[in-house]
Every structure is written in C-alpha cells, then in structure tokens.
C-alpha cells in the first residue's frame, strides 16, 4: 500500500473515533507529536513528585503524612504508565530521561515553583491536580489507544488527589488565623501558575490545530482555562479565600467568569529556564539518576549472571 492510501485509512479511523494501536500504521509526524506530548506528561509526573516530597517529612499529622506518601507514590505510578505508553511508540525510557536531564524535553512549568508552607500541599492538590484533571479527562478519549487507557487510570487518581488537596485547604481555613493566612498565601502564589498550566492562548498555541485534528487534544487551551476558572472560583469562595485577581468577575451574558490577563512574560521566563526552581528540579532528577547508575548496573549484571547460571 502506498503512503497516501495508508494515510487516508488512518484519517478515516481518526474521524470515526477508532483507536490507533501501536502496530497500526501512523504518520511519522503523529508518532513524533505523541512522543513529545506523552513524554512531557510523564516527565511532569516525576518532576512533580519533588515539590510535594519536600513536605512529606514535615507533614503535620501521621494521617497527612501517609496521604502525602500515597499521593506522591501515585504520581510515580502515573510516570510509569506514561513512559510505558511512550515506549509503545518505539522510544526507550532511558533516552527519554536523557532528554529530560539535558533540558531538551519539557515538563509542566508549574513544578518550577517552590513549596514554601504546608498549605502548598493543599493548594497543589486542589489547583494543580485540579487543572491536570481538566487537561486530562478529555484525553481519556485520545485517538492513541495506550495513551487513552493510561489516562483513564491516571484521571481516577488525580480526582482523588484534588479532593484530598481541597480537604487540606478546608481544614486550614477552618483553623487558626495563622493557618488561614497560610492557605491564602498558598492560593496567592499558586493561582496564576495554575492558569498557566493550560499553555499559551489559542492564538499563540502552535500545535493546537493539528493536535485537535488528530484527536490527541480535544479542547483548546483557552476553553480549558475558562472551564477551570469557572469551576474553581466558587470553591475558593466556599473556603473563604480571595482569588488574587482584581479583574475576576462573573459575566452574566457569557455565563462565565471574566478574568485578568496572565503575565505571559513570567510564563515564557519559567518555560525557558528562569523559574524559581528549574535548576533545582532538574538537578534533583539528574543526581537521583546518576547516583543510581551503579545500582542499575548491578541489577543488570546480577540478572545476566543468574540467567547464565540457569542455562548452565
């Protein structure tokens, strides 16, 4: 079959919402775009472990400590499913790590912000996992089978994380003045970076159109961002917290909240490496990887010896 015919067949499947599976023919550009998107997502999961891991040893109760451990462990699991989904496209996990460590591969910029108080554990669950859900639920219907299936598992856990984060915020907001202050401070710091998680505006998003055509993206960045604001603002009100945006206002006519302009200069700065923790995050991943080299080598060597002994 020639390429044109294969491509026509591929497009028909996409249009009919028939899943593309690893052994199916797919355009090179589709494969590459998926590898970029899925690996970026996988990297985000494992870099995302770091800001929260920062508070596990200081969690204020044993129940919270256990929940925090379980949450960060879930994120590691998400990383695993997503790297596996990526490997079905013919890339190697170790090569993906190499790209992360060299700075070639990107991950969600939100994790380049520091976790400064315990309330950040609440704010991250509530806002960051909340935004992740907005982004990811539509991907449960993504055209690439392994990706869509990974997303189904991931989304179930993310919504649990979101509720857990909100519950941390609620407890703080029902607590002492200092605890309320912590909660408000966390919202102040995490609100705008959370809105940035949806990426540049539609007019500046270079991949959107093609990705929507391929159904590996189902809504535009601005649509998802609006949805997030609409859902999250009433939740903030319920907590008794103030969203740090003086332009935020319900628009009766549109049936949506209007909100202020994102500081895109900050957004592009953080993406290009100048966020408060970019260097530390990559350094932490790199040193974990480098310090683990002898362990991985040992495991391989032992497995080989064992196989040889068995064969002998």
């Amino acid at each position: 079959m020639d390429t044109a015919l294969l491509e026509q067949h591929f497009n028909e499947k996409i249009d009919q919402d028939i899943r593309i599976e690893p052994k199916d023919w797919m355009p090179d550009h589709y494969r590459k775009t998926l590898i970029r998107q899925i690996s970026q997502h996988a990297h985000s999961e494992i870099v995302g472990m770091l800001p929260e891991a920062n508070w596990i040893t200081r969690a204020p109760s044993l129940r919270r400590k256990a929940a925090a451990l379980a949450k960060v462990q879930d994120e590691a699991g998400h990383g695993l499913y997503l790297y596996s989904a990526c490997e079905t496209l013919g890339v190697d996990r170790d090569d993906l790590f190499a790209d992360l460590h060299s700075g070639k591969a990107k991950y969600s910029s939100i994790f380049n912000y520091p976790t400064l108080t315990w309330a950040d554990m609440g704010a991250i669950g509530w806002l960051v996992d909340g935004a992740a859900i907005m982004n990811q639920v539509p991907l449960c219907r993504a055209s690439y089978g392994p990706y869509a299936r990974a997303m189904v598992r991931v989304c179930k856990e993310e919504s649990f994380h979101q509720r857990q984060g909100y519950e941390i915020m609620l407890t703080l907001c029902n607590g002492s003045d200092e605890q309320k202050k912590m909660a408000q401070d966390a919202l102040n710091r995490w609100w705008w970076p959370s809105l940035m998680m949806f990426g540049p505006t539609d007019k500046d998003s270079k991949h959107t159109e093609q990705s929507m055509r391929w159904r590996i993206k189902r809504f535009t960045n601005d649509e998802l961002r609006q949805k997030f604001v609409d859902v999250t603002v009433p939740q903030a009100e319920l907590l008794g917290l103030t969203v740090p945006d003086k332009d935020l206002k319900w628009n009766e006519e549109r049936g949506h909240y209007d909100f202020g302009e994102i500081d895109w200069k900050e957004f592009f700065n953080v993406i290009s490496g100048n966020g408060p923790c970019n260097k530390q995050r990559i350094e932490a991943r790199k040193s974990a990887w480098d310090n683990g080299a002898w362990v991985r080598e040992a495991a391989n060597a032992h497995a080989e010896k064992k196989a040889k002994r068995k064969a002998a």
Partner: protein
Amino acid sequence: MQDQNKFNYIIQQADNCLILGQRLAELCGHGPVLEQDIATTNISLDLIGQARLFYQYAAELQEEGKTEDDLAYLRDAWDFKNVLLVEQPNGDFGKTIFRQFLYDTFSCYFYEELMKSSDERLASIAAKSHKETLYHMKWSGDWVIRLGDGTEESHNRIQQSVNELWSYKDEIISVNAVDQEAEKAGYGVSLELIKEKRNEKIKAVLEEATLTTPEGDYAHKGGKEGTHSEHLGFILADLQFLQRAYPGNEW
C-alpha cells in the same frame, strides 16, 4: 494508665516503625530507578501505617485523652525508644537496603511471634503487619543479593554498608526490662527465639550475596532506653516542626 509496661512495650515498636518510615520518606522522589522509588515509598507508607496502629493503641492505654499524633509529635528524643539502627542516615542505596534488611529480618519474625500475643489487639496489628514485612524482607533481601552479586562496585559498596551497620544489628534483639516483663505477662514475645531465626536468615542471604560476615560482635545500644545518636534530634526537628511551631491546631 492501664498498664505502663504494655504502653512502653508498644511504644518501642511504634517508634521503630515511625523513625524508619520517616527516614525512607526522605528518599521519596530520589530513587535510583522509578520502580524502586515506588518500593521505598511503599515501605515507608506501610511503616507509618503500622506506627499509627501502635500509637493509637498506646494512646488508649494511656487514658489521658491523647492521640497518635500527640505521641509522635510531642515527645522529645529521650522519650523515643526506637533502636539506633533505624535512625541511621540513608547513605547510598546499598546502605538504605542493608539497614532495611537488618530491620526486616527482625520485624518479620517479631510479628510472626507477636501474632500469638495474649493481647488480641496486639495480635491483630501483628497479623496485618506481618503480611507487609514478608514482602519487605523479600525486597530488601533480594537487593542485598543483587548488589552483592552484581558488579565489583556494587559488591564493594554493599560490603562497606554491611561493615558499617554490623554493630547496629543486635540492639533490636537485646532484651531489656520492658521486654522481659512483656514476655512474662504473655503479650510480649521471646526475643531469643527471634534472634535464632533472624541470624540464620542474615547468614543465608549474605552467603548468597557472596558477602563477608564482619568480625566482631560489638553492639551499639541505648535507643531502647532513650539514649540516642545525634541523628534523632534532627529527625524530630523535621518531623515535629509544624506541631511545635503552631501548637494545638487541627491539620
């Protein structure tokens, strides 16, 4: 207080679980490979879970209206009765593994005996914990073997950790007054019995790992009586920070 000795007996093990769980929690996100990061986090989670069950029971026996968190967060180092082994720093992966293995080879047989405790509550906590530690001991034992048998570098590194931790291996099976009374009363276990099984297991794994058993049997002690290494103060500073800085709050 219903039974001071039972309280002390429970606290010894609760503190072991908490402090080792806390040490492993430091590693979360920094493992040598994703699967092992998940494994150490999982063991940490199990240990924190076990600590909670013990503290909850201890708090009930205390009858002072305290909670598991009061016991974990509001005691100072001298009240902690964990062994020195579990407060040792993580070191490299080999040291983490061997510390874990020394602990698991105790806790697994300890719970196996404690399941027969005359105290039903202790027996049921032990039964639940035993299932978990069986998995932990398999994991840490397999890694001792992997590292010992793996490459020259891994062999040397884990041997180094074996040598370093060797003097911390026996405090955990040393009998103090609390253990004696607990065994006599029927809710405690015989540490002598555990010692034999444990030593055999350690010997077998070191052998399979082609590692050398260190000479000398000097044992560092003090933890079980509340005299700790310099590490514990820092562990508690980290663990207890929020409860100390903002006392009396719900979290």
